[in-house]
Every structure is written in C-alpha cells, then in structure tokens.
C-alpha cells in the first residue's frame, strides 16, 4: 500500500462579513471587529422580527440580473462568467481568484487532470423564486434558460467547474451547516489516498431575505436588534443565530506538490472525523453525544490525545440548544480527560453563513496557525453554565494555537470535525 500523502492548505480566499481578503479577515479576527450590521428585510413584506445579518460589503447583488451587480474593480469577469451565476456564485468567483493566486496555481494546473472542485451551497432561493415567478407569469410557462443552472444547489459546481476548466472531479456536498466541512474531509481522503493531487474546496451562501428569513419560521434566528451582541455563542443571553453568507475557498493539496511549486502551506490538514446524531431533523442530540463521537473519531484518526489539542474553533451558532450540546460534547471529550484546549466560536463576529461555515472557519484556523493567534469569543459576557470547565477566551490571544480542531454540525445531526497542525516541512 502506498504511503499516505501529507495534505497541506496552500491557498485561501474570503468574501465574508468580516473582510474580503485574507489580510482584512486576519485583522478582524485579531481585533474582534464584527461583520454584523443592521439589515433591511423589507422585501420580505410585512414586519420582520429579525433586524441584523452578517453583511457582505463592497458588493451590490440585490438584483436578479447579473448585469446590475456591482463588485470591486480589482475583479474582472466577462458576461460569460456571470450570466448563469447566483449572487453567491459571484462571491465564490472572487474568493477563487484570491485562493488560486495565494496558492500560486497557474490556470494550467487548475485545469489538469489531478485537480478537483468540491463545493457546498444551498443554491439560491432568491433566484429560484425570481425565475419560478417569471415562469408562472408567462402564458406558456417559458422561463429563462439560465434559471436552473443559476439557482439549484449544484450551481457553484456548474459555473466554477466550467469557468476554471476543472477536469479532475467536480462534486457537491449537502449536509446543511456541515456541508463544506464534509467537502474538506473528503478532500483530505482523496488527496491522502493519492486519487487527487489537489482539491479546491468552496463554500458560499448569499445573505439575503430569501435565504435567511425561512430560518425565522423555525425560531432559529436571533431577534436581538443590536449588531454588537445579537450573535453571542455560549452566552446565557443568546437567542438564535445571525444569518450570513459570502464565500470561502481553500486549496488543499499533496504536500509534495506544494513543495515542488514553492507554495508555502498555511497548515497541515491532519485528518477528520464525522458522526450522525440519529435524533432530530433540526436539533442536535441534547447531550452532544453525536459531536463527541465525531471528536473522538477525529482524535483517533489523527493519532491525537485530548491533551494534544490547543484550540477548538467551535461550531456554536448562538442558538440555545446547539451551543449547549456542543459545550457538553467538548466537556465530555476534553474536560473529562483532564484536557483544556482554548475554545471559541468566531460566529460571534461573522454570524452564521450556513453551508459555508465549515470552509470559512477552517480557513480562519489556517490563518490562526500561520499567524500564531487564537481568536477570542466576541460578545461573550456570561457563559452558559453548560460551559463550566471550558476555557473560553474573550479576547484574541497572541499565541500559537498548536493542534487545532474545527467543529461543524448540521440539520439531521451531521457532525464533522477537522484537525489541523502548524506546518512543518
């Protein structure tokens, strides 16, 4: 059996509520500068109790027509690249451009037979509604030929795969808010086993009324109108998550391929683990049993003990049930073993970008590993008693995090944990 390849993270791209490039995102994480702002859900009609969102700056994508969108002048895209995109596809294109340049990947390498594209998004409810309304309003039910490819859940794969001439593999992942973590986990497997040299992992969502307001019907969104504290993971006063979106892209590849190109890795992706709760369509198992199982599975797969872990980037979204279950899972795996890694949820800064959360937070972990810092828990004032024994730093620590875990959980009880280490050649 061939030896497993080491897997390196060599490129990052960000369009997020806390910054639209790696330097700005790192500065926001270090200074705990939030990306949550007042958001006008007026197009929902009626009075909406939700008042804030993790907003994307520098972009205007409120029109269903790509020709009406505006985006930073540093990006140049032809109509052919835009006309079948949803708004979050534009975010993904911009983040891709950053990540490919960051990883020093030429167009020829991106289009070789060894490079795959793994994407996660919920599609675009906004464009789906627009196109379905237009279709039903036409006497012959004739809609736009771009309606399907720009709005359904595979839209990132269709568009980015074509634009970048991806030929190794092109695949989507759907496990709600664990989706892009699943994409990264399976990317690790494909590279470590030698099936692909590299995988470009993309998570993207659009923070607009159609994507976010349906979660209000589930009582999942915070109704706090103060952007500074609406998203407060692990705090006793938390009342729901703050929706967000954007795009995050990671280039993960065989370490030997990165070295041959002279691309300096941010971090090593050591491995991953997953589990399923088998409990409820939306709520986690209350004691965090499923996530604890994924944590243990990850430690075992990577040959780690609980005491080896220096930092856990928690999934905690600021919902009462989810944060409690995660805190209990962390206590079960770490506190019971006498370990006390630092734990923070960066969603206090960003809000919760749904399926892109895993990719975004994995990319935050890569920044933390290269930059030698541990993000703090923004907006955390009084920790939930369920967090007793956990080390929840309020401020960002100027300290190398060591081994890092990134947790994700999604509807239906999907749990994913990714493990990263500082890069050592």
């Amino acid at each position: 059996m061939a030896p497993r390849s080491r897997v390196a993270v060599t490129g990052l791209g960000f369009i997020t509520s806390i910054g639209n490039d790696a330097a700005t995102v790192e500065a926001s994480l270090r200074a705990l500068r939030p990306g949550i702002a007042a958001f006008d859900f007026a197009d929902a009609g009626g009075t909406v109790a939700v008042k804030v969102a993790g907003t994307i700056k520098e972009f205007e994508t409120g029109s269903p027509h790509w020709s009406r969108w505006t985006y930073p002048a540093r990006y140049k895209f032809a109509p052919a690249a835009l006309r079948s995109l949803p708004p979050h596809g534009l975010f993904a294109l911009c983040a891709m451009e950053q990540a490919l340049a960051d990883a020093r990947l030429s167009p020829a390498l991106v289009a070789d037979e060894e490079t795959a594209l793994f994407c996660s998004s919920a599609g675009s409810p906004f464009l789906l509604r627009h196109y379905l309304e237009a279709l039903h309003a036409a006497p012959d039910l004739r809609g736009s030929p771009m309606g399907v490819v720009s709005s359904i859940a595979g839209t990132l794969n269709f568009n980015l795969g074509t634009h970048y001439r991806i030929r190794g593999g092109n695949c989507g992942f759907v496990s709600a808010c664990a989706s892009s973590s699943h994409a990264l986990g399976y990317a690790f497997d494909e590279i470590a086993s030698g099936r692909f040299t590299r995988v470009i992992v993309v998570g993207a969502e659009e923070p607009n009324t159609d994507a976010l307001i349906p979660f209000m019907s589930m009582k999942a969104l915070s109704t706090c109108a103060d952007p500074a504290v609406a998203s407060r993971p692990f705090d006793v006063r938390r009342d729901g998550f703050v929706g967000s979106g954007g795009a995050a892209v990671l280039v993960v590849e065989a370490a030997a391929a990165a070295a041959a190109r002279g691309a300096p890795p941010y971090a090593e992706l050591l491995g991953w683990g997953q589990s399923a709760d088998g409990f409820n369509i939306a709520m986690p198992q209350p004691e965090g049993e499923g996530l604890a199982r994924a944590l243990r599975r990850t430690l075992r797969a990577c040959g780690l003990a609980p005491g080896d872990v220096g930092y856990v980037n928690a999934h905690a979204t600021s919902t009462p049930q989810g944060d409690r279950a995660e805190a209990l899972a962390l206590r079960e795996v770490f506190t019971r073993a006498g370990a006390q890694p630092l734990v923070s949820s960066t969603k206090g800064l960003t809000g919760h970008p749904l399926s892109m959360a895993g990719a975004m937070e994995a990319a935050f972990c890569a920044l933390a590993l290269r930059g030698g810092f541990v993000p703090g828990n923004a907006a955390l004032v009084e920790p939930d008693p369920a967090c007793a024994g956990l080390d929840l730093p309020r401020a960002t620590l100027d300290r190398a995090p060591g081994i890092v875990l990134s947790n994700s959980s999604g509807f239906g009880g999907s749990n994913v944990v990714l493990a990263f280490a500082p890069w050592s050649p």
Partner: protein
Amino acid sequence: MTPPTAKSPEERLRDKLEAFPPEFQALVLAYRAAPAPAALAEIVLSMIRFHGGENFTAKFAEKGEQVLLIEDLGFDSLTLVEISFQAEEFVGFVIQVEDFAALATLADLQAFLRGKIFPSAAA
C-alpha cells in the same frame, strides 16, 4: 395552489428589459412604437455586445460584423436560447434554436432578422 396571474406582454417586456442599460431600453421601446430596419440592426448589435462584454469589443474591432458568435464570443447553447427569447420579446420575432445552426456570425444574425421582419428591405 392558485397559479399566479399571467403577465401582460407589456409587463413581460418591462421585466426582460430590466437587465439592460437605460439606453437599450429606450431603443427597444422606440422600435416597438415604430419598427424600422436601422433600429432593428442597432438592437441586435447591442444585444450581442451585452452578452459578449469586453471580448465582443475586441473581436468586433478586429472583425466587424463577421465576428463569430460561438468561436469568437464563446456563446454556448443556453446563451443562444436566451438571445432567441430576448429577440422575441424585443423585436417580436421567434428565432428557432435550429436556425442558429446557419447563423455563424453577427452579420448572419442581422441579415436573418432583417429578412424575416423587413423582407422588402433585406439586402
């Protein structure tokens, strides 16, 4: 479920025009009020420029109306379908997708539409 009320042709035209710049919208509305071959040619040219972007500008400067829709501008089948739908809304003529097989260049498209809509003015 009650189906939504079908929109009038005028409402559908307004919806379709939303994606285009104001000067193009004015051009189409003027053409609809008083159809003429010169205005038709300007609408077709503007539609192809809209879909081709900067690539169109470069190729048109080089080849004029002999610019190739697929090879030069990269139009795929979905884009051609979209152009055919828009032509129907804007100038009132249905281009069948199979017609595009014989329409390699912008000049071909211009001549085809002029011949169908203004047969007496066709060159």
